[in-house]
Every structure is written in C-alpha cells, then in structure tokens.
C-alpha cells in the first residue's frame, strides 16, 4: 500500500510530575506519513515542541518492535490502540484517517502512578515477580537439559503464557485495575513445567499476596485484559491462577 500524508488532531495528557495535576492538551500533527508508527508520529510532534522551546511529551519506548513492553498509552480509550495483538509501537498511522481526532492518555491505575505525561511507574510488576515468580535453580550444576522430558503440547502452552511482555495494558484496560492476567501468566508458565512443581503452591500464594499489597484490584471476569493484550494471552491464565491458589489452599499453604 503506497504511503500518503494525513493530518491528525491530538488530545494528549500532559502532567509535569508525579504529584501534580494534569490536563488534556491539543496538538495538530501535520504531514504525517501513513507509513509512520504511532510513536514516530509522536516523535514528529515532539520535534516541533522542542524547536519551539516547549517541553516534549514524555513517553517510554525502547525496542519499537513489540517485544520489550516499554511503550504503551491509551489511544482513543483503548490500551495500545485499535489493533488487536499489537503494542503501541506496532500501531501504524495507516490505521487513522485524515482529520481524525485521537486522544492519548497514560495507563490509569493506582498501582501505576504517572511520573510525567504518558510515563508511568510499573515497578509493582517487578515486585510481583520477585515474590516467587521464579524457579529456585542455583547457577551451575544443572542436569542435562534433555533429562527433563516435557511434552510438546505442555511446552507450547507454557510458552503461550511466558510470552507476556509486562507492558501493563491488562491493568490499564481493567475497570478494577487488576493484575490477574499478568500474574496469572507467570504462575501458569511455571506451574505447567515440571521444574516449577516444587515451589508451585508457595509461589502462587506469595505472588497473589504481593499483587494485592501493591493495590491492584480484584478480577471480575470481564475479559478486557484479554481483549487488549498485545500478545493475545487468554483469560484462561486467570482461571489457572485461581485454580493454583485453591490447590495451595487445600494443601494448607495459604
């Protein structure tokens, strides 16, 4: 599809710092090639702001190919924008029409405080993983890799969950700001594998405990998280989380 040039009207959340009030500010992005990614469009807007001596819009981004999980904003009300199975950096301007108005906001969740503009603090996710989201295998002395047989279907299912990029869109989409899909994906990945079995019960109890301590909400099974997940991680991971938690409870781990 040959590229063309469009103009879009942006309404962007500007907030100078963590504990300061923010507001929506209007910008016009002119001469935007439809081959540009959404973030490249924001780069162009920022170039203009800098030339005018104004503060550029702060947003996180790194790999710009949909795998690092750094980027993410709520575009026209949808985390990562209108494309299913794609991150903000993978969204291209060909998805928009000339003259369209686009609202751009940060993830909104108590546990993800806004640091500036579209940049939020997602360190709560690291603390959830640090609460048992690992397998306690010391470095060195591991047995031969092929001595652990894992059926292909199990390995593939574990990989489906392990594909989570920790972007936080699931939390941003949820009306309760729940982190069940994120947490459930790691619990599922590790619970499916024989290597993860010994710590299975303690892991789910600790991770869920940390998730709640961080202030993430409860899950009410509406599935917004699944709908916006750029890696299409299914809500069945939450069912698995609940099942693992119940199993741990029956065994007296809680």
């Amino acid at each position, binding site marked *: 599809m040959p590229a063309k040039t469009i103009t879009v009207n942006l309404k962007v959340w500007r907030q100078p710092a963590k504990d300061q009030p923010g507001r929506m500010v209007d910008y016009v992005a002119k001469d935007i090639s439809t081959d540009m990614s959404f973030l490249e469009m924001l780069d162009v807007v920022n170039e203009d702001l*800098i030339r005018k001596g104004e*503060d550029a819009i702060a947003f996180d*981004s790194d790999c710009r190919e949909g795998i690092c999980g750094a980027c993410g904003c709520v575009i026209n009300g949808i985390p990562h924008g209108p494309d299913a199975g794609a991150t903000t950096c993978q969204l291209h301007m060909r998805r928009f029409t000339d003259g369209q108005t686009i609202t751009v906001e940060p993830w909104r969740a108590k546990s993800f405080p806004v640091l500036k503009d579209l940049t939020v603090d997602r360190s709560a996710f690291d603390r959830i993983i640090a609460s048992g989201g690992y397998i306690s*295998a010391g470095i060195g002395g591991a047995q031969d890799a092929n001595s652990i047989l894992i059926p292909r279907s199990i390995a593939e299912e574990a*990989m489906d969950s392990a594909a989570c990029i920790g972007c936080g869109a699931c939390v941003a989409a949820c009306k309760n700001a729940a982190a069940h899909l994120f947490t459930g994906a790691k619990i599922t990945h590790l619970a499916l594998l024989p290597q993860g079995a010994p710590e299975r019960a303690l892991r789910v109890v600790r991770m869920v405990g940390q998730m709640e301590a961080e202030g993430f909400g409860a899950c009410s099974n509406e599935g917004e998280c699944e709908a916006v997940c750029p890696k299409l991680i299914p809500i069945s991971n939450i069912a698995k989380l609940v099942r693992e938690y119940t199993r741990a409870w029956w065994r007296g781990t809680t």
Partner: protein
Amino acid sequence: MTLDGKIPGGPISEKWERRKFENKLVNPANRRKYEIIIVGTGLAGSSAAAALGEQGYRVKLFCILDSPRRAHSISAQGGINAAKNYRNDGDSIYRLFYDTVKGGDYRAREANVYRLAQLSVDIIDQCVATGVPFAREYGGLLDNRSFGGAQLSRTFYARGQTGQQLLLGAYQSMLRQVDAGNVTLFPRREMLDLVVVDGQARGIVTRNLITGDLERHEGQAVLLCTGGYGPVYYLSTNAINSNVTAAWRAHKRGALFANPCFTQIHPTCIPVSGDHQSKLTLMSESLRNDGRVWVPRKKEDTRPPEQIPEEERDYYLERRYPSFGNLVPRDVASRAAKERADEGFGVGETGLSVYLDFKEAIDRLGVETIRARYDNLFEMYKHITAEDPYKVPMRIYPAIHYTMGGLWVDYNLQSTIPGLFVLGEANFSDHGANRLGASALMQGLADGYFIASYTVANYLAGASLSKVSTDHGAFKEAAATAQARIDQVLRVKGTRTVRQFHRDLGHIMWDYVGMARTESGLNAAIQKIRALRDDFWKDVAVSGEQSNLNPMLDYAGRVADYMEFAELLALDALHRNESCGGHFREEYQTPDGEARRDDDHYSYVGAWEFTGVGTQPVLHKEALEFQEVRPSQRSYK
C-alpha cells in the same frame, strides 16, 4: 602499555579448568563485605547479578529503563547455539569453536572462543532448569534449528522469541536474589561516569532519570554490561535507548576500546521506508532456513514478484555459495545483497531491497508448519509493511545490528582498568570481525552466569582495596564532570533537535563507514563528523529541565557521546588496511568480490587509548596467535 590477554597455559581444552583452579577464592563469610556494581540488566548483567548475588556478594544493579526485564537482549529472535550434538549430526565443542573462529574471520582470541563453546553446553542446562520454555519435539526432547555459518543444527530456540525467554529466565533468577536481599535494583538510572581511585575502578556516577539527581555509588568492582554501539548509525535494529555512553565514559577514564570498526550488518531487516523512521526491524536469520533469497534476473524489473517466472529469478546466494546457500554468514549475505542492489537488480520502490521468499517452503511443508516456526515474525512484518508474507515474498535489506568491537578485556573479562570488568556485547572478546547467528545470547550468558563470578572473586581476593567513600575527591570530580556536560547541553539553546543531529551522524556513518569503506571515504567521514560535532555544540536544541524526567536531555547526552565515538570508529576502519568480517574495505578484495584479509600485518586486536576529543588516540596491539585453527581464506562456496 603492553596488552596481556592473561591466557592460561596448557592445551586449549584445559585452559579454563586451569584458570578456575589458579583463581583465588573469597570465603563465603567474607563475600558480604564486598559490594559489586553491575550496570545493565540484559543477559550479561542479569545473569552476572544472579550468579554473584547467589554467592553472597552484595550487588547493586543499575538499569536505564523502568524495569530490568526490558533490556535489549529481549529482542533477539532466532536462538542460542550450544554444542550439545543432540542431533547426532557431527557437532562438538571443537566444531562450535572452529565455526566461531572461522566465522569471526580469524580476528578473535582462540582461548576465549573455546571457553565460550565449552560453556554453551552448561547454558542450555541452566536455562532449562530455570524454566525457559524452549521448543520441544513430540517426544519431549529439545528441538534445534540451523543458523548461518554452520552446516548442522545446534540452535535452541523458543519460537521467534528466544532472547525474550532467556532474558526473562535470567531476570527471574536475578529477582530471586532481590527477594533474598542480595541484589538491590536501581531502575531508571543512567551511568554517566566511572570513578577511578588509585588506578582501580571504585564506583560510578549515575543520573536518576526521574528526578534528574546525580548519584554516587561506591563498590569494590564495577561490571559494565551495557551492550553495543549500533545506534551510532542512527538507524539500526537496536533499541531506542541502547547507547555507548557508559562504555565511552569508561574509555575516557582509561579503558582501551578495541576493534570499534568491527560492526555487523544483518542481511535480513525490513527495508527503510522513509526519513521519519526511528529504527529498523530485524527479521530473524532463522528465516533463511526456509526462505530463499532472490532478485529478478532483469535489471530494474518492476513486475510484482509472483509474475516473475522461475527462470527469470536469480537465487544469488544459492548461485554464488552452493554449499552454504541461503545460510552463509551474515557479512557475506549482506554484501551479496548490496552487490545486487548496486548493480540495479534491487526491488521495491527504492530498489534497496531483495526478496526473501517462503513459497517453496509453504508448498513443501504446508502453511501450518511455517506458521508454527515463524508466525510472530510474519505478524511483525505485516504490522510494519502491511504486506502478508504468507502470500507475497518479504522484502529485506541489510541493516546495522550488532557490534563486535567493544572495551578491551583480558581472558578474565577485566579491562585495562583494574576492577572494571566488561561483559557481553560491551566487550570485544569472542566474535572477532563477524559474529555468527545465535552466538550473542550464548556469550551474554556465558560471561554472566559462568565466568564473571570466578574472575571477579579472584580480583577481589587479590587486590589491595583501600576504604573509599563517596565523598572522595574522585567521586566529586566525576560528578562535577557529569554535571558540567549536562549544563553544557542545556546552555546551547540552539535550533536543531538532537534527533536531527543523530540522523545526520547516521547518514555519514552509513554512507562512509557502513558496508563498504574506502580510504578517501573514511577521511571524508572524519572531517564530516568533526564538523557535525562542532555544530552540535553550537546549535543543539534541548527543551525541558534537568531536575525532572526529561528523555530529550538523556538523549542529548548519548548523541554527544556518539559524536565523539564515531570518530574513533572511522579512525579504526581507516587504519585497518584489510577486509575482514564486517569490515570491508573496497581496496582489499579478491577478484570475485570476497573480503581479502592481511594476516601478515593485521592479525591483531587494535585497542585504542583515549587522549582527548579530536586528538589522535594511541593504538595498542594485542597480537593474535592461532595454535588450533589455521587462518585461511574463508570460503562458503
């Protein structure tokens, strides 16, 4: 200064064992007395923090992004090599060693490469133990695929997301040490200087990227795991925040920089579509297992690919290199694509791309098999180009991807500054002039999980380390230097943005210091870089303030360092009057266009000493000795 690689004696297969035994140890009870600074949380940094934390050292781990899980190792797609010989197809530690030395065009240190091949086996075991979901066969055993430069299958993979899965494995092992209280995380911190006291690396100065505060951190050893310098070319497959700053500032403090001109141009990237582009996206080399590379036989043929009949297609890699075919190493494949495009056979609107075609594989294996192998890559391609590679061939072109050069280190991964260790892509050590596919992940984890913990312990046990606080004069001086540079950037208040300067620098580097280099071009590049650097300090525009989150200010500091580093890269390329691996000098080629090495004069590591910005650095040479593999003209025909 004489460069002593500190290579252990004895037969090559016993060198690492010997070094491990020679090394001094630190008693477990004493390890808590040592504080170790690690900068970077990619495979090398995270795995080193996991290993050292587990042994009981106190580790301070710094990362530039909001979370250690996002480091650029995550973008590696295709896989990780290991000499497991699970396929029974002739692999061995010696063969992986041989392939890597040959693939590096005989510019790597044999002993390092052999150790890497030995450790490759342990890495796979370690990763499986920590739950990395590698691809499996129906019987439950691990699967393998092939990569360029090898005639067997030794690459382990997790779909097209191997880097992600390995990084998350190392990240989880590292967080386990955070959980245990052995590792302290410092996210959103950028290292701005290395602090050297009495000739030893004793700390760093960082900028807190949220508050803008400069912070001082003291330790008994510093490990730089900060990756490569690909974005000196502006457009590359590297991430937006990948940069040379930490390595460059360490270089300015006395660490030698080795072989900066050895840069890798990856043959299969999505082509450039316009000036707005902020980065290029790699399409994994693993695609060359099933994809066939071709261009039309007729010059400037504008027919759509499906209308070009088989006999009018030129599968030029299969034609030129029948024994390796589409799986020749990266440098060879990249040059071959450039050659076809330069001759007018390139395709696409710009003529700067070639086809990577899956039709034959889809017909032979079925679309479901191809989907299982590469679906995430095909999806990624579709997002960017709006074309469906299941139906039309991909269009690809070479792009900057990896940098083999880096800070000089000895066999112990220690730089020329005692106490400063450099791991992973940030050092120069294992890949010579060209890295083979699926070897970067291997090196990052070998350095971090299995090497640094032994060699850092040996250093700590043997070094005489005085008590140093962050009030020491060296800390104050380093912090003042970092502050002065920030002030300088903010003071200019010019008219051109940092990105404009970066893009201009990238054009110079790609045009003159890219895939084909000449003496006159390199001389011109050096002049242009100097002029651009002067312009930068006169006319750069940075808005916002220092005492707040300000990504543009961070970016300005990094581009300022690239402006200095680029000159060293070009100088290194100018001094190396030969072609080898990723360094191709047009004056030095065989009649059929292959790289012509000059082992009589250039079989050495070129390590540069900083003498000031814009002044001639001093070259130090570490001679390369080949006792196992006899250097020969590399042939993949």
